[in-house]
C-alpha cells in the first residue's frame, strides 16, 4: 500500500509520524509517574511503527497508479478490517461486564477489571471503535462513488483513519488505568480530546475537498447525512470537553461547567452523540447501501431529503429530556420533551422510506441475508425512535429513568439498528471492494444474521422486563407510606434478567466473530473477479440480479 504513495506523499507522511513521535516523547517525559506518561509511550510506539514502515519503503519501489482511473479504496479496506476487530473486542467486553452484573466475582479482584473501568471500554469500543471506523470507511467509499471522483491526495485519508484509532486506543487504555473525566461517551481526558479535534478537522476538509471535485452535479443525500455527522460531532465534542487541565504534566482536568450546568452540557452532547454519531452517519449508510443492494432507487428521494433537514433541525434540542425531574428549569425539560416527540416524524419517515423501498423486492429480502440485515435495521430504527420519543415524555420518564429500560432502549438502537445496518453494509461492500465473486460463505452470513437478531431480541426483552420491574418496585409504597421494597430486593429481582442479558450479548458477539471470520476468509480464499459492478452482481442465492434497465 505504501508503494502507491508518491515520494512527496511518503515524505509528508514521515514528517507527520516524526511530529507524532516528538509529541509522544514530550508527553512521556512530562507525565512521568502519571497515566499521561504511559499514554506518551503508547503515542511514541504508535507513530514509531508507522515511521518504521514508511522508512523501510522510503526508497523502495514506486508504483504510481493512474489516479484518474480508479477510486482510492485502500483506506476503506483497512478501515473495515479495523472496525471488525473493534467489534469483536468491544462486544466481548460488553459480554464480560454484563456477566459481572450477574456474577460479580468475574471481576477477579483486579483494579483494572472493575465494572466502572471496563464499561467505558465497551461503550467507547463499540461506538467509536466499531461504529466510528465503519463510518469513516464507508464515508470514504460513498463520497467517492456518489461524486464520481477520487479523493484528493493519499495522506489525509490515512491520517484520519489511523489518527482516529490512536484516539480510540488512548481512550480504551486510559479507562483501564482509571483515566476518565466522568462524562458519558466523552470520558477521554484533555489531550485525547485535542487530538480528536485535529483528526476531525482533517476529516471534514477531506470530505469537502472530495465533494468539490465531484463530476456529478447532485450531492447524493447520503453525503448530507455524513456531513452533518462530521460537523455537528465536531461542535459538540469541543463544547462538552471544555476543561482546564489540573497540570500540563498529568491527565486530570476539571470541566468548565459545574453541577446542573455541567449535566445540561453533557446531555446536550450525549443525546446529540446518539443523534449525529449513531444515527445520522448510519442513515447515510442506509440510504446508499440499501438501494444499491436492493437494486432499486429509494422509494421517495424527496422524503429522504425532508427527513434529513427535519433531523438536523429537531435533534439538537432534545438533549434535556435526560434531565427530567432534576434541578434543570422546567421549561427546558419541556422543550426537550417537545422536540423529542416531534422527532418521531423525520425518524419514521426514514424507517418507512427504507421499508417501502423494499416493497416489491421481498423475495430478495427472503433470499439475501445481507439485505435482511438492512431491513431489520430499519425496523429497529423505527422501533427505537418510537420508544425514545415515548420515554422522553416526562411521566413515562419518571418510571423509566435510572432503570434498565434505558439500557434496553439504547441497545435496541445500538444492536438492532446501528450494528445491523453496519454488518449489512459491510457484507454488501466487501466482495465488490476486494473484487471477489461473493462472500466466502453465505451460510455464515445467515448464521450471523440469526445470531444477531436472536441476541438483540433476548437482550432487549430482558432489559424491558428488568427495567419495568425495577421502576415499579422503587415506587411501591406500603400502608404506612414507606417504601415496600429495599434496593436489594430489586437487585434480587433483576438477577435472572441479567443472566438472560449476558446470554443475548454472547449470541450477538458470536455472530460478530463469525462475520469477521467470513470477511477474512473472503479476502484470502475467494477467487478474484473482473469487476462488472460496484457490488456483487448475483446474490448468494445465485439469482440473476442485473436490472433489465442497464
Amino acid at each position, binding site marked *: 500500500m505504501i508503494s502507491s504513495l508518491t515520494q512527496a506523499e511518503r515524505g509528508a507522511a514521515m514528517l507527520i509520524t516524526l511530529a507524532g513521535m516528538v509529541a509522544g516523547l514530550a508527553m512521556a517525559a512530562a507525565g512521568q509517574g502519571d497515566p499521561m506518561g504511559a499514554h506518551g509511550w503508547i503515542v511514541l510506539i504508535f507513530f514509531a511503527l508507522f515511521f518504521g514502515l514508511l522508512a523501510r519503503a522510503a526508497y523502495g519501489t*514506486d508504483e*504510481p497508479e493512474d*489516479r*484518474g482511473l480508479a477510486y482510492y479504496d485502500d483506506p476503506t479496506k483497512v478501515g473495515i478490517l479495523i472496525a471488525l476487530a473493534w467489534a469483536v473486542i468491544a462486544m466481548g467486553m460488553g459480554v464480560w461486564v454484563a456477566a459481572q452484573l450477574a456474577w460479580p466475582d468475574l471481576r477477579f479482584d483486579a483494579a483494572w477489571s472493575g465494572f466502572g473501568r471496563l464499561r467505558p471500554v465497551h461503550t467507547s469500543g463499540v461506538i467509536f471503535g466499531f461504529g466510528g471506523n465503519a463510518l469513516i470507511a464507508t464515508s470514504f467509499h460513498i463520497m467517492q*462513488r456518489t461524486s464520481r471522483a477520487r479523493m484528493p491526495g493519499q495522506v489525509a485519508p490515512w491520517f484520519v483513519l489511523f489518527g482516529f484509532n490512536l484516539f480510540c486506543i488512548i481512550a480504551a487504555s486510559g479507562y483501564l488505568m482509571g483515566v476518565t473525566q466522568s462524562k458519558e461517551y466523552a470520558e477521554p481526558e484533555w489531550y485525547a480530546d485535542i487530538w480528536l479535534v485535529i483528526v476531525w478537522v482533517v476529516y471534514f476538509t477531506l470530505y469537502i475537498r472530495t465533494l468539490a471535485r465531484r463530476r456529478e452535479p447532485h450531492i447524493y443525500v447520503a453525503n448530507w447525512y455524513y456531513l452533518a455527522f462530521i460537523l455537528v460531532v465536531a461542535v459538540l465534542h469541543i463544547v462538552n470537553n471544555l476543561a482546564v487541565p489540573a497540570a500540563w504534566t498529568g491527565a486530570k482536568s476539571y470541566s468548565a461547567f459545574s453541577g446542573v450546568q455541567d449535566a445540561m452540557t453533557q446531555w446536550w452532547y450525549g443525546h446529540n452523540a446518539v443523534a449525529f454519531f449513531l444515527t445520522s452517519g448510519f442513515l447515510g449508510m442506509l440510504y446508499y447501501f440499501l438501494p444499491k443492494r436492493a437494486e432499486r432507487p429509494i422509494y421517495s428521494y424527496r422524503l429522504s431529503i425532508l427527513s434529513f*433537514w427535519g433531523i*438536523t433541525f429537531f435533534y439538537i434540542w432534545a438533549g434535556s429530556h435526560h434531565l427530567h425531574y432534576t434541578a434543570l428549569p422546567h421549561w427546558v425539560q419541556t422543550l426537550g420533551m417537545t422536540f423529542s416527540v416531534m422527532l418521531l416524524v423525520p425518524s419514521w419517515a426514514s424507517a418507512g422510506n427504507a421499508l417501502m423501498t423494499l416493497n416489491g423486492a421481498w423475495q430478495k429480502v427472503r433470499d439475501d441475508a445481507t439485505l435482511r440485515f438492512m431491513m431489520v435495521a430499519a425496523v429497529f430504527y423505527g422501533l427505537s425512535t418510537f420508544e425514545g420519543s415515548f420515554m422522553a415524555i416526562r411521566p413515562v420518564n419518571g418510571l423509566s429513568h435510572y432503570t434498565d429500560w434505558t439500557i434496553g432502549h439504547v441497545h435496541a438502537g445500538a444492536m438492532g439498528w446501528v450494528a445491523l445496518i453496519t454488518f449489512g453494509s459491510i457484507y454488501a461492500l466487501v466482495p465488490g471492494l476486494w473484487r471477489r465473486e461473493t462472500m466466502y460463505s453465505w451460510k455464515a452470513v445467515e448464521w450471523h444474521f440469526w445470531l444477531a437478531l436472536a441476541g438483540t431480541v433476548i437482550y432487549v426483552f430482558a432489559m424491558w422486563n428488568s427495567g419495568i420491574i425495577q421502576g415499579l418496585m422503587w415506587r411501591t409504597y406500603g400502608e404506612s407510606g414507606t417504601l415496600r421494597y429495599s434496593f436489594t430486593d430489586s437487585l434480587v429481582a433483576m438477577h435472572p434478567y441479567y443472566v438472560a442479558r449476558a446470554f443475548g450479548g454472547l449470541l450477538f458477539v458470536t455472530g460478530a466473530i463469525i462475520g469477521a471470520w467470513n470477511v477474512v476468509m473472503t479476502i484470502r480464499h475467494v477467487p478474484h473477479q473482473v469487476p462488472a459492478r*460496484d457490488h456483487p452482481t448475483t446474490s448468494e442465492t445465485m439469482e440473476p440480479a442485473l436490472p433489465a434497465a442497464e
Partner: protein
Amino acid sequence: MSVLAFLIPVTLAMGAIGLAAFFWSLRNGQYEDLSGDAERILFDAQDRPLIPKRASPRRDTISKETTT
C-alpha cells in the same frame, strides 16, 4: 442556568449554518431532478471516476510531476 445563555446561541448558530446550507442547496439546483438523482447511484457499472471529456486521463497522474 447561565450555561443556557451559552448553549442556546451555539445551537442556534448551528441551526443557522444548516439553514444556510439548505438555501445554498436550493439555489444550486440540487433538487431539480430528484428521481434521476436517486437512480443514478445505481448505474456505475465501471466503478471508476468520471473523466472529463476534454482532458486526457493521463493528466491526473501526479507521480510524473513529482518523481522527475
